[in-house]
């Protein structure tokens, strides 16, 4: 049911991308269809609000060139110009970071996730997430995006993609290296924590 709902939500975007091969106007509403009102994120669709503009631009460029693979985003990015990228990312990066929600995950899982985010697991060669993504996971522009306040689904999907090799646009292969070492339990824990992380 949820999938059907998501697909219905996507239909206008896909139709839009398909029937105007020439150009889709940089229509914020198109982005909001999936990424939620004000770019706050929606289910597994990541939040865009308050994300660094250079990071967002790079992702759009990578979708367009095929360096980042995603069936929904690639046609959309291909239909846009560089100046559309600029306008859209400027808009979303200027929006306030949505208030973080309390997680419903259990306390032990969150505590394991917090430990990974703050200290890492060096016994397995895993540095702390916050070592590169900022002391509160707020991101360090331009290359290291904010990771708090993203849905657990989005975070765990990305880690899985790096691990399997379907996402490869991380600088210096840093996320590939970390993802390869994370166990399934750790991915679950850190994704749960980052969803609400940084509340403190």
């Amino acid at each position, binding site marked *: 049911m949820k999938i059907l709902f998501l697909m219905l939500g996507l239909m206008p975007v896909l139709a839009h991308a398909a029937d105007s091969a020439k150009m889709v106007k940089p229509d914020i509403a198109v982005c909001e269809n999936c990424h939620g009102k004000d770019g706050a994120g929606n289910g597994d669709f990541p939040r865009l609000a308050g994300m660094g503009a250079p990071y967002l631009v790079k992702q759009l460029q990578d979708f367009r060139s095929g360096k980042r693979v995603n069936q929904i985003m690639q046609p959309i990015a291909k239909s846009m110009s560089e100046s559309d990228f600029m306008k859209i990312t400027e808009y979303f990066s200027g929006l306030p970071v949505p208030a973080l929600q309390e997680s419903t995950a259990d306390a032990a899982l969150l505590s394991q996730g917090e430990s990974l985010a703050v200290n890492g697991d060096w016994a397995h060669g*895993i540095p702390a997430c916050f070592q590169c993504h900022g002391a509160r996971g707020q991101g360090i522009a331009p*290359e290291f995006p904010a990771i708090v306040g993203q849905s657990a689904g989005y975070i765990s999907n990305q880690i899985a993609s790096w691990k399997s090799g379907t996402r490869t646009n991380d600088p210096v292969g840093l996320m590939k290296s970390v993802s390869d070492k994370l166990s399934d339990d750790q991915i679950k824990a850190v994704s749960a924590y980052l969803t609400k992380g940084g509340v403190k």
Partner: protein
Amino acid sequence: MKIAILLLLAATSAFAAEEKPFTPPAEREIPNNEFGNVIRLGKSIFTDTQHYAKQHVGNGLNCVNCHLDSGRKENSSPLWGAYVRYPAYRAKTKQVNTFEERVQGCFMYSLNGTAPALGSAEMTALVSYAYWMSTGVPVNTTPKGAGYPKLKKAALTPDFSRGKEVYAANCQICHQSNGEGKKVDGKFAFPPLWGNESFNWGAGMHRIDNAAAFIKANMPLSKGDSLSDQEAWDVALFVMSHDRPKDPRAKGGIAATKKELHDENCRYGDTVDGKVLGE
């Protein structure tokens, strides 16, 4: 015969077990008492030296920048590898130094600051943290994983231009193109490798052999052992060919200091881009 093989196998597996680096006690094992409080302060100083020992620090670094994972990680000069190796004679000071004196050296050179006094709250806390972390490591031994693993001599003479390329591809994203690291909210998120906020010319890390060993085992973060030996040598040479705060031990001019203190694998006193390093 069969027994001999079994014995051999047992000996081999015992050897393999011995080869595994020491695992220091988990942080939750720090006792909840007065001693534990001092150990925890030691950890705080170690990981956030800028805040907890700020009066002793003269640059932008923290202990943990060179001693990863709060001083726990093997092959990253872990505290448990250092604590059990002192007192020791050091060529650098030409005398026997205690562990406390060794830590003072870190503050004077790597942190470009002033040494906390023996018996000061900071020193007592750092020594307590190192002592606790070394629980179970025999004294007067060199445990596997202590220090940085020495790198074999490079096949090709380390080269600045090749090093610059390695740096751009692997290091620059965090340490920046000017090598001066990156601050977020007024604190270094990525430490400076050269320039005024980095370690001075008296720090062990300015030696190319030392830096190459650290880099090979630990950099880029999470990707230790990913660079080739040659790349590690080249990039170490490149990084250590930039200027940094002066050697506090220098009494005379550069030439005299080079002869007296820098007869080692380093660029002190060399001219790079028309500037004499160390001035």
